[in-house]
């Protein structure tokens, strides 16, 4: 019962957060961590994933009705979703998205259920060299898949890795880079940084930017039904989007955003009427929205099986599980399988709850999107301050959150991406441990890593990727006289 309530509550909060501009799923998940402490690791994981998942549903509502993406993953839905709304087909778009997201979510959960235990079993054979090689591959992919140029993403990843070194070294107990501050002895906690970057930064942007009241498309309940043609055109994009999203979720980076762009591009390419895209093509709405829901579940696989978060929300989930003394990874399926399987069951039910919530309440959610920042900003700011203080009763954490919020505001203006920093910071300790243990295993000769097939495989992919980028860059930018 507690797990079901956690699922419902998480999904509801997530949907509201997805609708609201400003607070995104990452910040909301970080803010809800104190609540999850009351209910155990399983309920906590369910609630937090429900928030992430629900935000994907909610983001599409405002994209379609208001032409404002509630989440970055719903940006692409604005292209055709709002056009459908302008043609009087808002209800149909919302229904198709809700049903498509439900199907994608169900398929995603099925994929998680099938692949996660298998990968968990395979990951038991991973040692420090395999983890090190995998991290190198992950950081490289992350830098190339985020929206910023790779050099900026790599720089932010490096800074995140550096921040992860602050505090006591776990192997030698030497304090590093604390500069005499006792508060830094245990390092900089992840939660205030996440809240600052993803919560306070958004709030600061809302506060300083000029607000333009959106024009909202009205919708009546009886207009929710799509016609036969719309249903027919949405079936295959739903399944294609589900598959694309699930596998993109396995890749480091903003998987929900990337999956929507790939799905949209694919649907447009294979469509018999590509000229309809941008003017209300059903495929352009349903495919991406299915993809982003499925991507959430795909990204759970590296988190649960390897203990490696590939996206910022996954990093919060990892932090949440660690707060409950649960370490995700290959041993999760051996030591605490009930957590995984209860989570799977709850997600099936939660998926259905979101379908039931979103359709009848769509008018209410759309209204929430039009709440003005002058009401939202004060409330959300104070909730962030109290929320982060309540985790450890630490004033230092609140200062860290404020500092992160201010820095995040400027990072956004300077076009330096934040997600690579967060992932670098979270993966830093694991990366360092793998690095040092690998050096000790091979007695300083890192070339011996190629004797480990799995690690060698990852590094070969890294080398191929780098060579391909260099060659592509050389040919693409070759001056005309050399062609």
């Amino acid at each position, binding site marked *: 019962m507690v797990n079901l309530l956690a699922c419902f509550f998480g999904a509801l909060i997530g949907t509201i957060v997805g609708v609201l501009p400003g607070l995104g799923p990452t910040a909301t998940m970080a803010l809800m961590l104190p609540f999850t402490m009351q209910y155990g690791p399983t309920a906590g994981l369910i609630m937090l994933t429900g928030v992430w998942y629900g935000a994907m549903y909610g983001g599409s509502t405002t994209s379609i009705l208001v032409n404002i993406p509630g989440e970055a993953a719903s940006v692409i839905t604005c292209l055709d979703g709002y056009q459908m709304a302008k043609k009087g087909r808002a209800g149909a778009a919302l229904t198709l998205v809700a049903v498509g997201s439900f199907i994608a979510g169900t398929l995603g959960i099925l994929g998680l259920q099938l692949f996660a235990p298998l990968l968990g079993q395979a990951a038991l054979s991973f040692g420090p060299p395999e983890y090190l090689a995998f991290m190198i591959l992950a950081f490289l992919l992350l830098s190339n898949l985020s929206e910023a140029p790779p050099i900026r993403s790599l720089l932010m990843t490096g800074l995140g890795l550096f921040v992860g070194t602050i505090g006591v070294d776990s192997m030698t107990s030497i304090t590093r880079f604390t500069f005499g501050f006792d508060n830094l002895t245990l390092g900089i906690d992840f939660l205030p940084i996440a809240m600052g970057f993803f919560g306070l930064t958004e709030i*600061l942007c809302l506060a*300083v930017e000029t607000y333009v009241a959106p024009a909202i498309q009205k919708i009546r309940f009886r207009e929710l039904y799509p016609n036969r043609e719309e249903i027919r055109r949405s079936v295959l994009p739903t399944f294609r989007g589900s598959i694309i999203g699930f596998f993109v979720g396995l890749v480091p980076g903003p998987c929900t955003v990337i999956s929507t762009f790939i799905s949209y591009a694919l649907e447009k390419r294979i469509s018999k009427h590509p000229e309809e895209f941008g003017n209300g093509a059903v495929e352009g709405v349903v495919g991406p929205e299915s993809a982003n829901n499925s991507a959430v579940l795909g990204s759970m696989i590296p988190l649960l099986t390897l203990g490696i978060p590939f996206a910022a929300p996954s990093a919060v989930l990892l932090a949440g599980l660690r707060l409950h003394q649960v370490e995700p990874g290959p041993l999760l399926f051996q030591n605490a399988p009930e957590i995984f399987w209860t989570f799977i069951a709850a997600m099936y039910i939660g998926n259905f709850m979101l379908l039931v919530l979103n359709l009848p309440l769509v008018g209410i959610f759309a209204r929430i999107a039009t709440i003005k920042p002058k009401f939202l900003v004060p409330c959300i700011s*104070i909730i962030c301050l109290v929320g982060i203080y309540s985790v450890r009763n630490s004033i230092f954490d*609140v200062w860290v959150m404020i500092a992160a919020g201010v820095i995040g505001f400027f990072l956004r*203006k300077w076009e330096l991406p934040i997600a690579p920093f967060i992932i670098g910071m979270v993966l830093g300790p694991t990366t360092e441990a793998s690095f040092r243990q690998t050096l000790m295993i091979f007695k300083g000769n890192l070339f011996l890593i190629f004797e480990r097939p799995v690690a060698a495989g990852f590094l070969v992919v890294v080398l191929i990727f780098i060579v391909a980028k260099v060659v592509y860059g050389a040919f693409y930018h070759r001056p005309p006289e050399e062609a």
Partner: protein
Amino acid sequence: MGTSSYLSERIAHFVIVLLSILMMILSPSFGLGTLGKPGAGLYPFAIALFIFPLSLSLFISSLRSPKKGSILNREGARTFLSFIGACAFWIMTMPYLGYPAVTLLATFFLCKIMKLEGWLKPFLLSAGTALFIYLLFDYWLYIDLPRGFLG
């Protein structure tokens, strides 16, 4: 090279260059060890070597690019600083005056910063927020927040 950059952006890239140099200087003091037995300073040193060329490259390209105007206009800067001031006020006074009163005051300040009209609406929003905080954190979650003079 075609994109423009803010002055603050150039300064930030330079600061990161300096930070990476500082890391390279400080890391050996933690002990680099050997490759076969790495010390606490080897990994941060490697990270510093990684960050330095990236940050230097971005700094140089920002110097070569045309300069952008400032990030915030006067009104935006005032709102920004006032917002931070309200948050700082909450942090500094909450442990002593208690969260109910300080939350009420800070929310009220934020409402006025956001130009919420009149006095009644900000007061109602502030009181509502303070009540919500009490019900959620204190009453439901039993989280011990400082109550100050309310005891």
